[in-house]
């Protein structure tokens, strides 16, 4: 059941805006009020669980580029609440950490840092969690290619012995889906092989 706390919340936090949502109630909160707002949600509306925390990369040229998304759940009223908060446009983008209020935020924020490079201020140990320590890229950013980027593996002794490297995955002309486009060439890039035509027969490989 969709809640409607927006008017009540608006009285206390003037700068929040309603966020369009297909399921649960959602608001945009400026990052300077985020901690205060979440404390308020927890104490006055019983949203006591931080069930999910993630980020979105809206695109390389967008401003703001990164938005963090929080999902709160009330173990008493059994409904969800979505909070979106824009990160700063600096490199690295920054956001306030919620680890002091919810220990659950610890790993989620590490993951968001690992995947998007968002720096959570006040986090006790902001290190990579899914990728290895020292990995140079942020894989879920939109400018990171699906195939991956060639880079070194961790563990110098293993690399010396095996000469192994991280190499981009062969995608065979990917992406995995057809794109919504007008021409067949754009729609099915995999099927469009320019190396042969009616005049020049297909090379026998």
């Amino acid at each position: 059941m969709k809640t409607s706390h927006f008017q009540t919340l608006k009285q206390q936090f003037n700068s929040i805006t309603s966020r369009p949502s297909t399921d649960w109630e959602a608001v945009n909160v400026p990052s300077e009020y985020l901690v205060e707002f979440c404390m308020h949600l927890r104490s006055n509306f019983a949203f006591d669980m931080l069930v999910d925390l993630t980020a979105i990369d809206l695109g390389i040229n967008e401003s703001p580029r990164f938005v963090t998304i929080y999902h709160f759940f009330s173990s008493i009223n059994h409904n969800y609440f979505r909070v979106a908060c824009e990160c700063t446009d600096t490199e690295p983008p920054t956001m306030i950490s919620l680890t002091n209020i919810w220990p659950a935020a610890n790993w989620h924020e590490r993951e968001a840092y690992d995947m998007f490079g968002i720096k959570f201020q006040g986090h006790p140990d902001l290190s990579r969690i899914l990728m290895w320590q020292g990995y140079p890229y942020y894989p879920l950013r939109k400018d990171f290619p699906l195939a991956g980027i060639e880079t070194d593996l961790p563990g110098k002794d293993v690399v010396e012995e095996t000469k192994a490297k991280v190499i981009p995955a062969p995608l065979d002309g990917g992406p995995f889906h057809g794109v919504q486009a007008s021409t067949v060439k754009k729609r099915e890039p995999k099927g469009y092989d320019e190396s042969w035509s009616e005049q020049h027969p297909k090379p026998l490989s």
Partner: protein
Amino acid sequence: MQKQEKEISIADIPSKSSQYEHDECSESMTLNMGPSHPATHGVLRLKLDLEGDIVTSCEPVIGYLHRGDEKIAENMTYNQFVPYTDRLDYIAPLSNNVAYAITVEKLANLEVPPRCQAIRVIVCELARISSHLLGIGVYGMDAGAVTIFLYTFTQREKLYTLFEELTGARFTTSYTRIGGVARDIPEGWLRRVGDFLDQLPPIIDEVDTLLTRNKIFIERTQNIGIISKEDAIAYGLTGPNLRASGIDLDLRKNAPYSGYENYEFDVPIATLGDAYDRYLIRMEEMRQSIRILKQAIAKVPSGPWYAENAKKIFAPPKAKVMRKMEELIQNFMIVTEGPQMPPGEVYFEAENPKGALGFYILSKGGGVPYRLKIRGPSFCNLSILPKIVPGHMMSDIPIILGSLDFVMGECDR
């Protein structure tokens, strides 16, 4: 020939531990457990600081099974991602399939027919039994009771035969589609599910007699790995681990989906939140699943098993595609461009055997999600380890890990 020198961690312990020695009586050392260790049930690595036999700090290192599912999801259509959901909680793939399909249907504001909902409840509950059977089996083995595993695995084998008949695969089922399921239930399948359910309770009772009052098992699990109510909430624990701490929260009951509100069942709650309580909850949940299943198979509604009016989402049956122009085009568009979704964002959690599996989808329209985030229950359940492990003996760690019943596939994604 080149001489090879390899450092082996176990042999290193005596030499390295001398560095940490500061007292004649006590000895502190750092120990790496995993990523390949039978008690970690996958590729979890724990960095442990030990003072004698007592753990003083525990730092889980995860990510060894990271495959970048979320990045892959951004680059394929909604239906193409279904097989990837199998590999999240690979002990109960069917319930992942269902959770994912419901999320996307919520985004499309699509209602599936009652028959489809009933089928989904049946497969979810069968998956729950399958997951708990394995969870309890290996938990017993961790505690030294190897017999349990033989009982539970025999039953899982029977479940796999049922899954194979329904989905065509024993393990990676990929059963749901957006707006329905891959195929209708086969002739006589419900009867065979009924037969399976009839012979299962005696086996659960057998496991019950072997474990629940077993003195060794009780000594090893009671008062081990206690999670308080407050911690369980603060760390975002879900599923049996949360209910073992005394919180009455089951999404099937409290935020019903797929018609769970039509079935009668109880949600078992424990009080203390130790490893023994978590075992008891799983045992009782299997019995409740049998209860739900018996109601479900008794009244599977007839009618369509996919959303027939969702022309841009669910591909029509092959027989129609081969003979009719309109269906042929419809099929072609869904296969090449994916099920068409409106722009918007959606978050949905399903009560899976391991806890609440959540999907967050941000769509900008079209057949491909702009961002898809998977909230793996095991990820959250494991994040409490640094809090509960310190103070326990080294030999209690397999018990704590077994009682949390996690799976690395959905933790690392």
